[in-house]
């Protein structure tokens, strides 16, 4: 008997080790909860302990290396790359001006949307608190799309909190340790999120594939769904707040494995392969945050001001047709406040008259440069002149009290009116 164990000791050791791990696998596998994939559920207590030890072994070095590389990049950014700061500052100021105008253009629609939502009883979730975190490591295999971030439970992070970047949704937290956390990306095969196609308003569920793509594969073929359509979170999964950008539809093809459904491949809005910094959403509220409320109020005020300026302009100069108005109106959205190009563009102008001023202070309405008001349309000659026809009435200075009416006016008054009979 001894010789049997000795003779086959190598194979026996292998069998025992493999069997032990098979049993361990069986113990660890969890039953899916509410349709969630097993890999997306945080580990049980004993497994978390094992993972914590592994992560504790690896992440300090990752953190050190990441910190060193970050310092190097900061030195580069602060001292060498600073020469572009002035130009970037000017560009950013221009960008802020443009965005303010855009914000004003959308403010009215947003306010209307909020009113309608209130009427219909929707509950919008606003992001009130986020924690910025740095990505310090990965899982190291393309079978598991997991990242490690440098913030953990000591920073207020909890499992299943949504993680985003300014560009869009990234994923959610899975296991959270004291000083770091495991981030499950949306392209992992165990990950999922409720989404909404922005134009067609069709709801679906995105899932990662084994090849690292993001797909919706619970929708049947629909001719309304087209590549290029934006996809946003629907809020139905209770993880991601509603309306966060997810990506755009890249391709639509029949799903051979799940007929009759289609495989709608989505290009994520955030670059999941080059994540450096992420935001973990740690707080949401059904009321808009104070800062956002102030911004919305300011945007609404700007929109109202633009609208008034456009109305004054339309009132004072009803026949003006600014050739750039149509282009600007199209460019600023269909809110109706951008009827006059100069106002919608945010160019400095005469706020009282609504007409823009040139450098000499003269009113310029289109036309040739340097020729005031040369852009005004020319008046066509009247077919049946009357007292209101331009040029038919003598100047007031020439008229005498009690004098007979000029002949031209008498003729125009006596001529038969076209709609009299």
């Amino acid at each position, binding site marked *: 008997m001894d010789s049997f164990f000795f003779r086959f000791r190598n194979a026996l050791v*292998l069998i025992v080790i493999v069997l032990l*791990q098979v049993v361990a696998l069986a113990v*660890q596998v969890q039953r899916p909860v509410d349709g969630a994939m097993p890999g997306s559920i945080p580990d049980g207590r004993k497994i978390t302990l094992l993972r914590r030890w592994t*992560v504790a072994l*690896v992440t300090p*070095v990752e953190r050190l290396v990441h910190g060193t590389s970050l310092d190097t990049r900061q030195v580069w950014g602060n001292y060498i790359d600073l020469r572009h700061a002035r130009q970037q500052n000017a560009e950013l100021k221009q960008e802020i001006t443009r965005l303010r105008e855009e914000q004003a253009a959308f403010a009215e629609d947003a306010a209307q949307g909020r009113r309608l939502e209130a009427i219909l009883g929707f509950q919008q979730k606003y992001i009130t608190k986020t924690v910025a975190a740095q990505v310090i490591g990965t899982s190291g295999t393309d079978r*598991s799309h997991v990242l490690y971030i440098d913030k953990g439970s000591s920073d207020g992070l909890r499992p299943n909190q949504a993680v985003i970047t300014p560009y869009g949704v990234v994923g959610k937290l899975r296991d959270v340790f004291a000083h770091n956390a*495991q981030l499950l990306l949306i392209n992992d095969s165990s990950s999922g999120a409720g989404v909404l196609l922005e134009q067609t308003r069709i709801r679906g569920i995105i899932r990662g594939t084994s090849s690292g793509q993001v797909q919706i594969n619970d929708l049947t073929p629909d001719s309304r769904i087209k590549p290029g359509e934006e996809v946003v979170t629907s809020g139905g999964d209770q993880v991601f707040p509603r309306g966060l950008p997810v990506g755009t539809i890249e391709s639509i093809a029949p799903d051979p494995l799940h007929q009759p459904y289609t495989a709608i491949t989505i290009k994520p809005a955030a670059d999941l392969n080059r994540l450096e910094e992420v935001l973990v959403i740690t707080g949401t509220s059904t009321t808009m945050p104070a800062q956002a409320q102030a911004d919305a109020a300011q945007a609404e005020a700007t929109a109202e001001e633009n609208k008034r300026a456009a109305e004054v302009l339309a009132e004072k100069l009803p026949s003006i047709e600014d050739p750039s108005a149509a282009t600007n109106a199209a460019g600023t959205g269909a809110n109706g406040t951008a009827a006059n190009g100069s106002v919608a563009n945010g160019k400095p102008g005469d706020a009282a008259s609504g007409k823009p001023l040139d450098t000499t202070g003269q009113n310029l309405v289109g036309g040739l440069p340097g020729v005031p008001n040369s852009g005004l349309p020319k008046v066509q000659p009247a077919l049946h002149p009357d007292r209101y026809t331009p040029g038919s009435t003598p100047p007031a200075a020439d008229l005498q009290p009690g004098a007979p009416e000029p002949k031209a006016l008498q003729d125009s008054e006596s001529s038969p009116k076209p709609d009299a009979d």
Partner: protein
Amino acid sequence: MPEHSYTSRAELDQYAFRPVVTVLAPLLCILLQAMLPKTWSKFNYVDLPLIAVIFFAVARRNPITGTITGTVIGLLQDGLTNHPFGVFGIAKGIIGYIAASIGFTVDVDNMLNRVLLNFGFSLVQSGLLYLISRRLLADPAVHLQPVHQLICAVVNALVAVPVFLLLDRFKIRE
């Protein structure tokens, strides 16, 4: 206790490593594997821990040591993923065993043999991972991707050459 003749391959080519190398080399491979894809996502094609398992297994030529080394490295890799512990542990344990067994019959100092070994074991690992995920864990999302696995195998075989040459420096003939 089997006796080795003076000229047996096992006696001639069996190597040992300092404990610090035994611990730090696989750990460094796991660390690099976890950090490098952050800046270069294509690095996921490479499996440095697998290369380390194959190297230590064929150098020591002891199936038990190979199995244990493979299992430990695999379990450490599992700890960084969202998979249950054991997926990589089983796969790399089996590869460690086979690699150590093959080491008796193949000249593992030959460059071509090293390339072929790494290419073959990379494919074997892909097959084992597929079986474990699909059959043991019943994960429907896992599919075989032959082209991707072939590319991974080729890349691993090429990367293994300089890694083996580097680790050769730490060998101690027993």
